[in-house]
């Protein structure tokens, strides 16, 4: 950042010597090479954003890495360097391993289901008719609801004593007063359904935009050649959509790993520890017990796993996106 204070007279002398030479420098259209002053201009404009970024994200991130190797107490008392203790605790603890596993399981199931359903919704809604505009707007409603509110409403609907869900399940022959949150399997189903209700529109929106941007010519050519709708989808629409699918899947995966509200409100990790995703644990350890070192170590482990996972995902999907591979 210091570079902005380039010595002014230096540039002047350079300019002066160039003028004395009486010709412009190389360059097809007589462009002069950028002087120090000109080259540093973009940095000046970027500086405020860079400073904010450094303060708000880079510094805390570095601090998390630092804290993960220490046992600092946030309320006075001297912390010291403890090497890998926090990490050993974070990766050897059976509850933590379980929490990581079910977090991945939840993300995989939820994202795959949301992708399929989102695509299924996007296909009919992509055609730009008036009815579709209304449909798309309606579809976006769940996406606009705060996750915490959605979870609270779901909790009321699921109440076995006066909730709608139990009542209508009863109509279809399920036992009366069924407690969906009291059994691990049904609690998971509920959590995944809530997540799908909330986030499928987000995926549908990205894929709709993708579908609307596809060129029409290949489809027309295929129609002339007498392709069936399935063949059109399989060989034209889907391959062209792969980049959009990749973007949607990656964004949604990152988001899904950050899920917190719905679990906290609906199950609190129960029954037993069956829905105790890693974020609930990090929240408890870090922000209720204030065991900062362990919470940071958990965060770092989580980050490492994620940063390995995302490029891997991109490669898997990206390979399909490369026309050479098709």
């Amino acid at each position: 950042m210091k570079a902005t204070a380039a010595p002014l007279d230096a540039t002047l002398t350079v300019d002066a010597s160039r003028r004395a030479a009486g010709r412009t420098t190389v360059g097809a259209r007589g462009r002069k090479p950028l002087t120090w002053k000109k080259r540093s201009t973009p940095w000046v404009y970027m500086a405020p954003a860079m400073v904010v970024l450094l303060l708000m994200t880079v510094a805390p991130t570095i601090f998390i890495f630092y804290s993960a190797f220490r046992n600092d107490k946030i309320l006075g008392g001297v912390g010291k360097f403890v090497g890998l203790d926090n990490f050993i605790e974070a990766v050897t603890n059976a509850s933590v391993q379980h929490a990581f596993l079910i977090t991945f399981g939840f993300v995989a199931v939820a994202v795959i289901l949301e992708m399929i359903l989102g695509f299924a919704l996007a296909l009919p809604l992509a055609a730009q008719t008036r009815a579709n505009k209304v449909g798309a707007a309606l579809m976006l409603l769940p996406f606009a609801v705060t996750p915490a509110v959605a979870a609270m409403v779901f909790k009321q609907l699921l109440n076995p004593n006066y909730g709608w869900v139990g009542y209508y399940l009863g109509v279809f022959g399920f036992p009366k007063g069924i407690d969906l949150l009291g059994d691990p399997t049904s609690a998971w189903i509920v959590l995944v359904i809530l997540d799908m209700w909330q986030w499928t529109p987000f995926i549908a929106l990205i894929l709709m935009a993708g579908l609307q941007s596809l060129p029409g010519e290949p489809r027309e050519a295929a129609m002339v050649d007498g392709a069936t709708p399935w063949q059109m989808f399989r060989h034209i629409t889907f391959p062209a959509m792969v980049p959009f699918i990749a973007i949607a899947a990656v964004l949604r995966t990152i988001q899904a790993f950050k899920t917190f509200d719905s679990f906290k409100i609906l199950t609190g990790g129960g029954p037993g520890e069956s829905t105790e995703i890693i974020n609930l644990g990090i929240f408890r350890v870090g922000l209720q017990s204030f065991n900062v070192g362990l919470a940071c170590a958990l965060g770092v482990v989580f980050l490492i796993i994620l940063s390995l996972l995302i490029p891997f995902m991109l490669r898997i999907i990206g390979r399909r996106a490369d026309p050479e591979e098709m």
Partner: protein
Amino acid sequence: MKIIQVGLGAWGARGIRKGSEMIRSLERIKRSRVVAGLGAALTVTLLATACTGGSSAPNTAAAKPTELRMLYTTDEANSAAVASLVPQFKEKFGIDLKIDNQPYDALQQKVFSEFASSSSYYDIVVVDTPWAPALVQNLEPLSQYIQNDALNPGTLQSNVGDFIPKVFYDTAVYNADSPIKRYPDPTAKPDVSAIKNAGFDVYGMPIQSNVAVMAYRSDLFNDPTQKANFKAKYGKDLTVPKTWDDYAQVAGFFTQPDKKLYGTTVMAGVGDWATDDFKTLLASYGGDGTLADESGKPAFNTPEGVEALDYYAKLAQSGHVPPGSTSADWGTTAESFGSGLTAMTINYHDLKLADNVKGGTIGYAPVPTGKAAGPHFGTWMLSLNKNSKNKEWAYQAISWLTAAEQQTTMTAKSLHPSRASVFAGIKSDNPLAPFYDTLGKSLAEGVGRARLTNYTEVSHEVAVAVNNAATGASSPSDALKSASDKVSALLKSAGY
């Protein structure tokens, strides 16, 4: 998460209003994105010069500030009651009392980050019992203020002897060098000299005390038909149950699922509420209701513990509690009872019946007992920030707010007093008189929590065990053994 321990289910009771607070707190959590937020908060900590405000002798001639700042809860400790005293305070002291209210989770984070950064912004901070062991080094010991006559003129006398002994020792009396220790005689009349001589000090004044009490539908218990039926069925009179065996029997008697009526409630969802239910039972079966002993070892995997959890699991699976009890919390059970779904319940605050419960009336009684009594309790206290610039005035504010006269005023707004004289003086025309009577009796027998810096973690493991036993996922003895092993490891890693 003693949240609602108090006033209300922060995750549910009183519905919408509560909900909006909860969303605010969740939004805050989201904004901070947990770990990133920690990092940011701690960066500040790191930069702040770590000056531990020393406590010096109170200066009785300290300049009067124009404003004192206090950090307080929302409904959990009846913030409206405290807020109603602000104009009176201004009139008496000529000082503005500025109160910031935060819902439970956000409050806990704010309290800890204020102390972590040695901030002097808040003079008075509300402290929940589970946080105190970790915070006590940052709180100003009050003994020298209490013993300084100049700071306690006339009616301002703090009169600590008037606090209910068990409440006072459990909430406010600590040995700062070894916060796990408890005052040896928790029934003695509180006396500052005796407390100091035993190596302890006073770190706050209890303001809102919460304890498990039983609420029941007195209209059902007094109904002639019900009485006759009960007599015919069991050969004895229908009375409010005093023992756990009677409690289970009466719960079975009232249960008629076809009429949408169940006997009672359990809070067996995973959370501090389940731990508290279990603590109460454990103590009444003769076990150590604090869950851990003073050497930092878990004390619940015992024959008494198994017996208590076995009773609880049987009750949860008996069909005498509403469906969904194994995912219920403070809010859900208050709602169940309030909507007329159950004949009895055990909760931590006064309850109201919805309008559709025709002719319903509520009675209160101490929770049933086994070999002993030990309803779970926990209290909020007002403490003095060690870094405050106005300690002498802040102390006077604390002692005024928690004095008998002010506590009596606040009972009009449902505050749960902490002084014996206030309970004794509640007039029979007070609509909540029966509730306060029960509350006072229960507080005198209450059992608090172990004083651990990572109590939240311990409570979580116990709650998981209670939930697993209640759903039948594992046997009570297996559940307790597994929780005990995990808690041992937790306590070891916390340095006990």
